[in-house]
């Protein structure tokens, strides 16, 4: 039903004879050992916007997977097979866009702790049944995908495709070579490749000014800009690649700039320069356009935008309110000078980075035991008891963590008191609330950590034989904690040892008491 509805609704936004579908995937998390990315999921959202607003892909024909894994990708690809087949049966030509932003290596995409091999991805695209499959893969060593298929690094030439529309086959565009890293930039708030791909598809790549961006225009634009902007980076120049296996007699148009739901920014050739367009509402750069002597037009969704030209001493900024179907000319009179410190775009990107740097939460179910270290204390006052509870651990990318936990303990025992021939049965109840901070090793299958821990401690002794009132103690117990565990994927299994000092002097003994907790933690990392 939904599939059929998708076909109907999708057709109203797409060409009558071309129906477009998209699977957009972004994941900041990679495999164990991959440093987490800041902008992969945001880049995917950006591309989803471009494809739905300018690329004729209806939202119902779009599957967006942010921070999802292999299972969700397989399910999404399978879900689209029905609508694609239905559309083809209705005589439409079908185009499937696949966009991926995240980690990868020479063999597979890393969707969090899960993976999809390049071969599997190729098979998934082929199995979709779409007449034309276009894959944009923004990932390290993504050139492995085109290399597998015999693709080569694209030359920096103008791809002059004037084929007819009835195309069959696939096109794969990757962000980097098979042995190259794909880079993110704090300055532009995203990866270079996706930034320029989105910019190009929004109009930056419309070389011939016909308000349509073809695959070849987009590729040429993204190749030039990515190579140019990464040539001076520490990671080295990043070369996008493409693999063209398309039997086409028409031009493959990816975006059309004059769609009804969009407005147009007109950057006249009379005001040359390199302009970055920042979407104030969505807090992201959406395009970067170089204006030489020719006018450039960029199609954008209605909303508020900043058009910035970064000059050596200051910013030149134009604030634009863009309505649907409106054309706003951004000439030199609309610009005002601004300070770099007042750069809203930069502040928003910084906020995005800060958001990405926020700690990850892992929740652990703890089960174990609590035992006092002094044998006399253990025998005469506090027998070992079981304990169980919950721990929340917030971990930062640099290895720091803080934690909060609650443990409840309960158990029965018999006190051994000198001079008494009768057993003193005791029921022990305890509850602790703890906070901790420390460091952990980098994420691998085995991870260890340790730090300081402070516990609020409550304990009650009850004597079931009667005759002696219940006894309680409250204290704050400082201590240390160490843990070692297996962290396969989102799940974590830790063995945790805590050692605390309880500054409670019982019956005039010289000092307080030490106690330890040995706990097994079963956790899930969000």
């Amino acid at each position, binding site marked *: 039903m939904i599939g059929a509805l998708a076909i109907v609704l999708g057709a109203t936004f797409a060409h009558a004879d071309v129906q477009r579908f998209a699977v957009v995937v972004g994941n900041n998390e990679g495999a164990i050992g991959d440093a987490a990315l800041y902008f992969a999921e945001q880049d995917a959202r950006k591309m989803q916007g471009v494809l739905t607003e300018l690329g004729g892909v209806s939202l119902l024909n779009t599957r967006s997977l942010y921070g999802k894994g292999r299972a969700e990708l397989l399910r999404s690809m399978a879900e689209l097979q029905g609508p694609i087949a239905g559309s083809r049966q209705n005589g439409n030509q079908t185009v499937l866009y696949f966009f991926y932003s995240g980690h990868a290596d020479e063999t597979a995409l890393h969707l969090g702790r899960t993976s999809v091999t390049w071969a599997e991805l190729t098979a998934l695209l082929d199995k979709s049944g779409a007449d034309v499959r276009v894959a944009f893969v923004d990932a390290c060593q993504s050139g492995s995908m085109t290399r597998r298929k015999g693709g080569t690094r694209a030359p920096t030439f103008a791809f002059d495709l004037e084929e007819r529309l009835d195309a069959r086959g696939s096109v794969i565009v990757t962000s980097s070579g098979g042995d190259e890293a794909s880079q993110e930039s704090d300055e532009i708030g995203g990866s270079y490749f996706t930034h320029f791909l989105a910019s190009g598809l929004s109009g930056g790549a419309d070389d011939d000014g016909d308000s349509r961006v073809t695959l070849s225009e987009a590729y040429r634009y993204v190749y030039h800009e990515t190579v140019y902007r990464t040539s001076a980076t520490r990671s080295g120049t990043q070369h996008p690649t493409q693999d063209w296996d398309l039997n086409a007699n028409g031009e493959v148009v990816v975006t059309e700039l004059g769609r009804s739901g969009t407005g147009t920014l007109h950057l006249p050739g009379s005001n040359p320069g390199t302009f970055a367009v920042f979407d104030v509402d969505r807090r992201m750069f959406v395009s970067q356009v170089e204006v030489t002597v020719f006018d450039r037009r960029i199609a954008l969704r209605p909303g508020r935008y900043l058009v910035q030209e970064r000059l050596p001493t200051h910013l030149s900024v134009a604030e634009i309110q863009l309505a649907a179907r409106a054309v706003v000319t951004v000439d030199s009179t609309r610009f005002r000078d601004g300070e770099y410190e007042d750069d809203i775009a930069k502040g928003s990107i910084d906020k995005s980075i800060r958001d990405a740097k926020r700690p990850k939460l892992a929740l652990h179910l703890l089960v174990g035991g609590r035992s006092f270290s002094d044998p006399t204390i253990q025998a005469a006052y506090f027998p070992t008891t079981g304990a169980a509870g919950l721990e929340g651990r917030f971990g930062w990318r640099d290895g720091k963590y803080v934690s909060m936990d609650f443990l409840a303990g309960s158990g029965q025992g018999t*006190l051994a008191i*000198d001079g*008494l*021939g*009768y057993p*003193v049965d005791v029921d022990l109840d305890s509850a602790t609330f703890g906070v901790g901070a420390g460091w952990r090793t980098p994420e691998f299958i085995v991870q260890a950590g340790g730090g300081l821990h402070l516990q609020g401690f409550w304990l009650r002794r009850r004597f079931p034989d009667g*005759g002696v009132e219940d*006894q309680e*103690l*409250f204290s704050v117990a400082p201590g240390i904690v160490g843990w070692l565990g297996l962290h396969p994927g989102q799940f974590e299994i830790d063995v945790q040892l805590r050692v605390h000092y309880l500054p409670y002097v019982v019956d005039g003994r010289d000092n307080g008491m030490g106690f330890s907790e040995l706990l097994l933690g079963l956790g899930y990392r969000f």
Partner: protein
Amino acid sequence: MIFLLLAACGDVSNATFDDDANFLAALPDEGRQTVGFGDDTTDAAARGLGERADLVELSVAIASQVNGFVLGTLGLVERVRELPPTERGDDTRRWGPYDGDCGVSASLLMSREFGVYQWSVSGHPGEGEDATVLYGTHFSGETVAGGDGSFVWDHRRWAGWCGLDESGLVTVDYDNRDGVDLLVLVEDLSLDGGEPTDWTYAYTRTDTLGDFQYRTVSDLADDGSDELATITVRDRWIPGTGGRSDAQVAGGGFGETVWSWSQCWGRTGRLTFQSDSLALTEAVGDDADCVFEVAEVDRI
């Protein structure tokens, strides 16, 4: 750290149980209020005919009887060691009622003042009125257990509860401050319908010395006369070294004559010296070889 110590509060303590232990320590204890001989002394009594030291053999047998009797009297006290007090006050404890032998329902009441513990065991068989059968006083030493005191056992009352034809009153003075020192006075003791007799035992044990002496009267001549002989025996020994037994019999069939009989035994328990004043036994060895050269029987 000071902050943390201030932050610790509560009322967890074993003081109540420790004080229970103090009360229990003030009660007579089987281990302290019984007579024990060293292994070599017991060996001496187990030697074969002609080698054995007869007197210490007799003493071991007597001690066994004494122990059995004392243990019997303390049985009512030992029971409470396995039970938590029924009631606790700052300076009082009560155990019971609990079941004793012969269907007696007994209670032990203790009180304490200035380190002096007073205690009594009262009870009754069936539905009877409570009466005291065992009571004592204990003075604490450096520790509660390491003190001294006395207790009295009314055997006649107990025998009445149990329907036995027996009588007697037993008084035990003990001093645990340096080893064990016991003085047991048994008056008018009659067991199983026998004639009432008086017995006196004195016993001292330290790490380096054992001393056991008893005195009784008996119709040694077995002639049915009223004149009974007074028998006094004293055994002294040094653990791991050897010992000496001295006996005196006066009165009864001996008239004015006092018969003295001494034996010594060595480290292995073998008889090393024997002599008696009437040459009734074979003379063995020289008393210079005894661990105690001089005969002594006058401790009680």
